[in-house]
């Protein structure tokens, strides 16, 4: 163990590992690039759907079902199928990571929006906010802790899983890990794994800082802002009951 640590340290100390296309900086950039695209796409897909369903209160079971279904898909299996039908390359990797990123964001946005205090939404509507105004000025700002929680989960998983890109001929930090595996070079494997872990943690720290920056201080006083969307699926199942006890605010005839 001590020997491995020393070897890994030596690997990081070797300037040859820091230059060129196979160098650490370039692999980190590639890895980030492979990760950011599916995360952004997932945000574009999951947040609007989660918000719309959370706002309307209809179709919640569908969202939870889809999210859980996608969560249970094995990434490597998905990737293999995609590669079989498409070809090797970045596209199947992006799709596989997208499937990974959507569930926590969808569940987080849905739970965040639908858990906003009904009295608060009622007051917003009663003061004359239109439905889009209620969503953007009240529900989404209040859902932000859970949305960012979902984003953090998605980011961690995507960065960790993006290593599989190297399986299908794309690079990234996975390349370091798998090229080590191919020649049983445990030092290189450990270095690759370590880089992936550090990158994931740094990304999480950056999102935590973002969370502190954009979540209203008013939401921090009462509840922890580190709630994660991973707990979300349990909540929507209770929702139909908790809703029916308070009279549903009716939408105006239009």
């Amino acid at each position: 163990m001590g020997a491995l640590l020393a070897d890994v340290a030596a690997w990081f100390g070797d300037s040859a590992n820091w230059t060129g296309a196979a160098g650490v900086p370039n692999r980190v950039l590639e890895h980030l690039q492979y990760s950011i695209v599916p995360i952004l796409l997932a945000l574009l897909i999951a947040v609007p759907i989660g918000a719309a369903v959370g706002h309307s209160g209809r179709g919640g079971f569908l969202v939870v079902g889809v999210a859980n279904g996608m969560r249970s898909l094995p990434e490597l299996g998905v990737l293999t199928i995609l590669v079989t039908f498409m070809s090797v390359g970045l596209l199947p990797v992006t799709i596989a990571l997208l499937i990974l990123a959507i569930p926590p964001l969808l569940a987080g946005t849905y739970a965040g929006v639908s858990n906003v205090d009904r009295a608060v939404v009622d007051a917003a509507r009663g003061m004359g906010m239109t439905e889009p105004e209620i969503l953007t000025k009240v529900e989404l700002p209040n859902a932000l802790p859970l949305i960012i929680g979902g984003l953090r989960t998605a980011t961690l998983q995507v960065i960790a899983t993006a290593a599989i890109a190297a399986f299908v001929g794309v690079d990234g930090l996975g390349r370091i890990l798998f090229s080590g595996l191919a020649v049983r070079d445990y030092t290189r494997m450990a270095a690759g794994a370590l880089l992936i872990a550090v990158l994931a943690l740094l990304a999480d720290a950056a999102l935590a800082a973002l969370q502190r920056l954009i979540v209203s201080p008013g939401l921090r006083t009462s509840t922890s802002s580190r709630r994660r969307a991973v707990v979300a699926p349990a909540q929507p199942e209770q929702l139909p009951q908790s809703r029916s006890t308070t009279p549903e605010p009716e939408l105006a005839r239009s």
Partner: protein
Amino acid sequence: MIEFRGVTKRFPDGTVAVDALDLAVEDGKITVFVGPSGCGKTTSLRMINRMVELTGGTILIDGSDIMAGDAAQLRRGIGYVIQQSGLFPHRSILDNVATVPLLLGWGKRKARERATELMELVGLSPEMAQRYPAQLSGGQQQRVGVARALAADPPILLMDEPFSAVDPVVRENLQDELLRLQSELGKTIVFVTHDIDEAVKLGDKVAVFRTGGLLAQYDEPGHLLARPADDFVDGFVGRDRGYRGLGFLSANGLPVGELSTVGSGATGDQVREAARDGWTLVVSDAGHPLGWVQVGQALSGPVDTDALIAGGSLYDTEADSLRGALDAALSSPSGLGVAVDASGAVVGSVRAADVLAALATARRDEAAA
């Protein structure tokens, strides 16, 4: 004026919450909807700002049908206060209050200036402006809710049990504040409560609902207490309604009798001389009552102001009703109620028998009228 014409609400599950309601809410007055739980008060209120869609009849505001325009537009012109305050947790108190002005496109600065004025009006200190709702007490939150509803100066204010989640002392406080505000602003207020005492205290007119959204009686609070329309209303207004009804009878013309008083430095002899029926009232230099002395007490030296017998409630001759006068008489140890003027100085005494005589006169006058 808000006018309900044959208004019915049948929910999709078949519940008829309000049934053919006819009612006219007067401008510039507080109209209270009161009744047992589930009788349709909230539903009736929320139909006014279309938070609940009516399924029959019409509601007119100043003669125009509320269904004619856009719902959000209608609501921006109607203040709305609810029991759970419904403040936006993510916005500062100032920005909560500025909500409707901002929706109306006033511009941030003007909206915040207005919000600052409103906070002062409802008695919130300026330090609260930058706090968030979770950092406020329940009573403070309700004040913010009222300020927020009034921010764009709507002519109508709808309030659904706004004070029922706070403790009784704070509630009474908020009720008094609302009456003070209303005397300044003269809004058309519709106020929902299930508490008949609150209804009677706040309402210029009280609508008592019975289950099924039927109107049992719509009357001034004094009449409601004096002449309940039927057994349901009688039962609902509750015990002591005769006594509470005195609160709506003016004490004008109630005779104020003499009262023996001595200064706080009086000697035992002076007290014995001044006393009537064994009692005399000790007053301060400004004429404010300090307490009673009974002649039977061992009166050796001068009056000991620490050993006085506490008096009862005071009857303010300029502001109180017959109820205040009767309570002063009943709660006084000597049987003589202490009457004071607006400054709190003693002006004389009032007897329970005189209050009852005044009540009899008031009844006779009313029957004749």
